[in-house]
């Protein structure tokens, strides 16, 4: 098999290039983000007035379930994955991830899993048990149709994708860092990603077990959650939240990593307190496993458990607060350039703080009994997930789009996107604090008039429309800039890390020569050495060694020519440089493109979907689909494993 071409549908289906897979993740996840957003718009339209009549109870319940499930599993996690894929190898100076074909497999499983779950709309039986899927409502006794089957099977499928990706990135970060890139020199995004991969590896098996129990209950008549057989529904709740709370940090830490890249660049200052930022990220992740039952203060665990989970939850506020202050002090004394990316990053700092403060309010169990399952909680976690995760991801999109595409996003359109999002976001979610405190429960498809909730709900709905409108600016901006935006060059922002030393978009091999690193800010060492005098460096006696991206010592901090031949960001290029030397010319072995991971993923998903036929009373057909798919999946898996990854090394 020869190298595939770089264009055309086939090249995308067979790609194992982490950058192209990252791009696929980005656009797929944005598509699901739009779908989840559309579901949110319908929810808000239904709730705009008391006794709304737009959606019925059943459709509304499917809508809020799919909104939550889509945003968590199909939008925010894969948006983070887009950045993991694209950035981690670039930031650590590697040519690809450790397992490029496994990486492709992860993406295709995610895509097919997302499609599978959304196919449920077409049979009118979309999941309707909430994204949290509390038993026994999700058992056959109370949900006999296919709704929950789609949800259980869909989440199992997506779990495979997340776990495969997590092992891949852990291996990549541990084994494939460029020389000199010790752990405490990794860019903060890579650090937070590293932490998140461990969260995935430790949290997803728990939800997998919970889901396997539910799947067996539903399909094979086991009794893990069967009330009539004496099951305890709290089993599900504990398992779900042991996964579910770390999941919150899986959603937010990548965004923390992204703003930790953006804030230093546009403040022209190194990240304040780098080691503490690393430790606090790890501490948040570690403590995140010990606080799950704060989602369950109303279930009656007793005073001892309530106290322990309350104190553990409050502890998390400390490392989180440290991060907020360190970000502010990164900007303090800096030279703040308010690009759109920077505005989104600053918005994260400001808005996540609000979500953090209300989070401490829930940590007090007795007070939480008046908050849990009310709109106050809805306000809180949207400040965390929209004000935090999405603002951070938007910051990352504006910051890294030039590296993805070679083109700049329009700052003008971006400003529209930012300001409308910022106003819309606060108009949507801030009034929810009030509707919650005014006694409005969550997950209700209608509410009566005269409850004192009308104004807040109308505000939330108008805010949501504004937010939806704002997002169109992002779509327009990306479509417009993908081919017609200003040419970015290697380093349009004057950034400190390795990914900015190579052309935009990077050649398939990333680095013509693997760089050697002597500090946390290798590119600043070269371009603006005065910014990094205070940062630890590899030293030769008294002399600091600056190393350029090509691996050459440049001692005095003078930039030299770029390895792949493109010009540096100092003088703006006029066209996107794509005629780099090929990997073959440079003698770099590159992985072969292959379609096999796609087919393994496809047949894995058809294998799972065969289960649905069991509940359609077509056992024979179900077995035929499952066994055929399993055989095809195994066949393609063998073909994959028995074919070489790349040409033999010379």
């Amino acid at each position, binding site marked *: 098999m020869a190298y595939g071409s770089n264009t055309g549908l086939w090249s995308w289906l067979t790609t194992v290039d982490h950058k192209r897979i990252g791009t696929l993740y980005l656009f797929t996840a944005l598509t699901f983000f739009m779908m989840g957003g559309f579901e949110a718009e319908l929810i808000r339209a239904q709730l705009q007035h008391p*006794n709304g009549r737009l959606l019925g*109870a059943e459709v509304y*319940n499917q809508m809020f379930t799919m909104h939550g499930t889509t945003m968590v599993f199909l939008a925010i996690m894969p948006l983070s994955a887009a950045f993991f894929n694209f950035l981690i190898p670039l930031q650590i100076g590697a040519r690809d991830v450790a397992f490029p074909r496994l990486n492709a497999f992860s993406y295709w499983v995610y895509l097919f899993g997302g499609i599978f779950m959304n196919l449920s709309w077409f049979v009118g039986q979309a999941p309707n048990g909430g994204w949290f899927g*509390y038993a026994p*409502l999700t058992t056959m006794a*109370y949900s006999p149709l296919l709704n929950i089957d789609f949800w259980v099977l869909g989440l199992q499928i997506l779990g495979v994708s997340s776990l495969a990706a997590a092992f891949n990135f852990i291996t990549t970060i541990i084994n494939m860092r460029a020389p000199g890139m010790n752990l405490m020199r990794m860019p903060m995004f890579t650090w937070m990603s590293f932490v998140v991969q461990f969260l995935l590896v430790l949290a997803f098996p728990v939800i997998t077990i919970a889901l396997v129990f539910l799947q067996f209950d539903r399909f094979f008549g086991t009794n893990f959650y069967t*009330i009539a057989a004496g*099951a305890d*529904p*709290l089993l599900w709740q504990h398992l779900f939240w042991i996964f579910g709370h770390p999941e919150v940090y899986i959603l937010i830490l990548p965004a923390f990593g992204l703003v930790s890249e953006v804030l230093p660049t546009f403040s*022209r*200052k190194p*990240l*304040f307190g*780098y080691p503490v930022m690393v430790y606090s990220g790890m501490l948040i992740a570690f403590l995140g496993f010990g606080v799950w039952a704060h989602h369950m203060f*109303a*279930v*009656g665990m007793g005073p001892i458990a*309530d106290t322990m989970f*309350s104190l553990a939850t409050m502890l998390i506020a400390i490392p989180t*607060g*440290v991060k*907020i*202050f360190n970000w*502010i*002090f990164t900007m303090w*004394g*800096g*030279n*703040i350039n*308010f*690009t759109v990316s920077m*505005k989104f990053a*600053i918005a994260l700092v*400001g808005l996540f703080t*609000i979500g953090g403060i209300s989070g*401490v309010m829930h940590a007090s*169990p*007795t*007070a*939480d*009994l*008046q908050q*849990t399952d009310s709109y106050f909680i809805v306000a809180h976690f949207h400040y965390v997930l929209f004000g935090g995760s999405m603002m951070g991801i938007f910051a990352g999109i504006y910051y890294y789009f030039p590296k993805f595409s070679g083109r700049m996003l329009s*700052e003008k359109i971006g400003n529209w996107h930012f300001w409308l999002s910022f106003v819309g976001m606060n108009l949507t979610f*801030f*009034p929810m604090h009030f509707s919650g*405190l*005014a*006694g409005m429960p*969550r997950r209700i*498809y*209608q509410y009566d008039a005269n*409850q*004192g909730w009308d104004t807040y709900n109308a*505000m939330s709905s108008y805010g949501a429309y504004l937010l939806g409108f704002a997002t169109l600016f992002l779509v327009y901006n990306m479509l417009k800039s993908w081919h017609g935006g200003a040419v970015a060059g290697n380093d349009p922002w004057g950034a400190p890390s390795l990914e900015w030393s190579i052309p935009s978009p990077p050649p398939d091999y990333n680095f013509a020569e693997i760089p050697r690193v002597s500090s946390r800010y290798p590119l600043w060492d070269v371009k*603006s050495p005065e*910014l990094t005098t*205070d940062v630890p460096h590899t030293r030769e006696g008294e002399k600091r060694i600056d190393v350029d991206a090509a691996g050459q010592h440049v001692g005095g901090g003078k930039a030299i020519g770029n390895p792949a031949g493109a010009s540096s960001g100092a003088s*703006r290029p006029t066209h996107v440089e794509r005629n780099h030397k090929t990997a073959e010319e440079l003698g770099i072995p590159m992985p072969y493109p292959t379609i096999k991971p796609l087919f393994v993923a496809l047949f894995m998903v058809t294998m799972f979907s065969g289960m649905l036929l069991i509940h359609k009373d077509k056992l024979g057909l179900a077995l035929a689909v499952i066994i055929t798919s399993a055989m095809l999946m195994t066949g393609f898996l063998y073909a994959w494993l028995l074919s070489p990854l790349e040409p033999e090394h010379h």
Partner: protein
Amino acid sequence: MPFPTRPRVPVRAALTALLLLAAVAACSGAAPNSIFHRHSDFNREIDVLWKLLIGLGTAVFIFVEGLLIVTLVKFRKREGQAEPEHVHGNTTLEILWTIIPAVILIVISIPTIRSIFNTQARASADALQVEVIGHQWWWEFKYPQYGVVTANELYLPIGRKVNFTLHTNDVLHSFWIPQLGGKRDLISNRTNYLWFTPDSVGSAAFNGFCAEYCGASHANMRFRTFTVTPAEFAEWTVHQAGAAVGTTVATATVATPTLATPADSNRPKHVPGGGKGDSAQVAMNAPAVTTPATAPAATPAGFTGYPISRVATSNVIPTTPLPAEIAFTDPYGNPARGATLFAQGQGGCIGCHAIKGVPSAMGNIGPNLTHVGSRLTLAAGLYAMDAKHLARWIKNAPVMKPGVIMPTLGVGQYNPVTKSKMTVGLDDQQIADIVAYLLTLK
């Protein structure tokens, strides 16, 4: 820098917007279900925490956002500015902003822990015991000390501690009266407890909600709580524990669909032509209705139900609009005929509903109807309890409340469960009679 840098201060604008929003929100009218009404010892305990949390939360908010804004203004990029100083950390500062939040959290955690143990201690033995049973999607309330079983309307005496024992008949629910305290979940195969003393309210009516997602009509699983004087409560329990009274008004006829306001419709209208002969007929054909004809009082003595005239806030009066598709012709219901129909099992009411004093009505799937006419709301707080709503409810409940177990009963009605028209069932006259009967069950 390649990009024009107009100094902007996003967070200052944000803060202004938030404050404006808060101001608008605070002035946007009453919040009748607000958790800040401190009408029980439980809610006052919570309020102490809230004051602390909101106070400290606001202080932290102002400090952090203020610091952020100062930073953004002070250090915005200016023309011809030198590169910033290369500070990459400061141990003293970092220790400081680790310790200060820790101190704040200790300040919060002490009253928090005290409140956990206070509110979760065992209720004293002399407390009023109320058993709460959650059903998809209605509430059953039992008073074992008084032999009372009722649904969707909770009566509590002022100043007496009440201990709720919480069960569910099916999936998870959560019991929540925001004005009287925090919520507690109803967990299958488990028993939960919650207690408080409604005290500072006087006689009042409150809304209660199901706060745990429980399926299709989770939004429609509401209830009402009435706090009454101890004397009224005593009269109420005696009356509720007794058998159905109401057949003594069997001579009355009710203009079924025309009554709009709950106040009116609670009282059957006397219409000329509703003959006494019907009354005799009831007595003969429906011996099951045992109330002796010698008890002439149409309205039982004493306090039998919270009168709508005492409802001071409109939030407890349901305004859910009726679905347009259930038409109802205009017959007059005859309660005596209705009693007969009911006791004979027409429409199958007795398969699910019980009426104390009617031996054939022993069903325990739906709400107990012994004193259904004394209730202010129908279908778990969704509609007003009046002839207009009740008639349509009996005719086609699944259209009025998605997912409800109560089947479509009106002949010719579209049954959303079987997705077909009913070829058998009750006609409008029969429904009107049953409605007239049920509304007499004070």
